[in-house]
């Protein structure tokens, strides 16, 4: 019996907190604890016993660290809540930067400031209900379009696709979208035109495609002339000259998720030859 207890204690020690810096880019699992650089020297290996005595230990040089999606704070501890790769962004000026978990989920949760593609599902009075793939439909005021006034209503029908931005999105309130920026300009947002193709991909792929240095988009652009809209909610709308080209583009983008760079280059070169 005593031996069994010893085994259990050993296993407990096995799940020790790891330093956030050492696991960057690695897969983290829910429940794991991470140590921030400031805590490493205090709680890291070997640091427990021989710590130099500080004059006022209450004041520690604290760096401001922002907790992104997939992480949560519990007192002084940083805990993982989602499975994925741990990422870190260096801060612009001072501080500890941003940590977040890059996961491959399919369900979208509205976030303030995100640009998304929604489908109008209802018109009621002066607001539209827009399905964005979240847990409840977002509301969109008819005045939130460029050039819209009480007299001059925008032409939006049920079933139309809308490219817009969230201005209100939190867990306790109904999400609200707008199709204008802070200056009242459309800036690319609004109703997406007729035809073209809408399809869904995982949220991880969208983030990959929208990264500033994404090669896929540049390569796709060289293939055919196209119009393309990415919604952070995992929806992509694409339109090329012919239906065939549109379908090819949609299939390529969908397949990009599980291809290595070499495989992708091969396919693109094969398509360019035709």
């Amino acid at each position, binding site marked *: *019996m005593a*031996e*069994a*207890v010893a*085994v*259990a204690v050993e*296993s*407990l020690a*096995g*799940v020790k907190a790891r330093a956030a810096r050492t696991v960057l880019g690695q*897969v983290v*699992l*829910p*429940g794991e604890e991470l140590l921030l650089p400031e805590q490493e020297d205090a709680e890291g290996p070997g640091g427990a016993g021989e710590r130099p005595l500080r004059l006022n230990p209450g004041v520690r040089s604290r760096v401001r660290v922002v907790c992104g999606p*997939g992480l*949560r704070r519990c007192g002084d501890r940083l*805990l993982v*809540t*989602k*499975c*994925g*790769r741990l990422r870190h962004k260096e801060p612009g000026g001072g501080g500890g930067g941003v940590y977040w978990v890059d*996961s*491959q*989920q*399919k*369900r979208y*949760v509205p976030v303030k400031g995100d640009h998304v593609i929604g489908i109008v599902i209802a018109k009621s009075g002066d607001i539209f209900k827009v399905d964005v793939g979240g*847990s*409840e439909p977002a509301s969109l005021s008819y005045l939130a379009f460029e050039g819209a006034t009480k007299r001059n209503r925008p032409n939006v029908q049920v079933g139309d696709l809308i490219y817009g931005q969230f201005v209100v999105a939190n*867990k*306790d309130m109904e999400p609200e979208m707008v199709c204008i920026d802070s200056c009242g300009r459309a800036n690319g947002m609004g109703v997406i035109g007729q035809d073209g193709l809408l399809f869904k991909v995982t949220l*991880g792929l969208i983030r*990959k495609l929208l990264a500033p240095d994404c090669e896929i988009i540049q390569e796709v652009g060289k293939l055919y002339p196209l119009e393309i809209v990415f919604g952070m909610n995992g929806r992509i709308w694409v339109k090329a000259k012919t239906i065939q080209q549109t379908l090819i583009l949609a299939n390529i983008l969908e397949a990009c*998720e*599980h291809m290595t760079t070499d495989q992708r280059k091969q396919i693109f070169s094969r398509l360019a030859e035709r």
Partner: protein
Amino acid sequence: MAGEMQIDTPIRAETGAEAGPRGPGCSLRHFACEQNLLSRPDGSASFLQGDTSVLAGVYGPAEVKVSKEIFNKATLEVLLRPKTGLPGVAEKSRERLIRNTCEAVVLGALHPRTSITVVLQVVSDAGSLLACCLNAACMALVDAGVPMRALFCGVTCALDSDGNLVLDPTLKQEKEARAVLTFALDSVERKLLMSTTKGLYSNAELQQCLAAAQAASQHVFHFYRESLQRRYSKS
């Protein structure tokens, strides 16, 4: 998509000296897990333990019926479908056990007024079904990206008439056993989340089974990590 992987986990070799007498069959059967294999649900997983196989799908955080809405947390629902026929009393009871376990680890407060639905389909039952359901549910929840406090796993122990302990019993071993105990354990503190037992056993035997399950859970969590690393290695 995570490829299928199998590891044999002989408990005896790892832990060395164990508590109590143990029969020669005292090890977990081999596991296999595949994630994200269904296209429609937000997360899915199939989990194999020996010949027992369960397919799980998770939908959520999704829209919730007004009657089931909870204002400060997510509504968790578990549906267990038997291989044939309609779910009966046994399934309802298992559903409840799985739901209570999931509720202990899912951070429902982060998605109030939404529903998280876990659908479990039994593909084949060859013993330790509840443990396999728990493991499949956990992997599917992780795949769906539902925020969780910790991972969890299920381990079944059987005690035969001589007092021998068998981990992860087959259907035949379960039938011959004097007592069958199933535990759900979390990955952070290895604490008990849920336990359900059938048959006669002493207090000491319960503690012995729990210790064996805790040791076995380490292998299951190790397998989870390998399986998830495999899934994320392709991106």
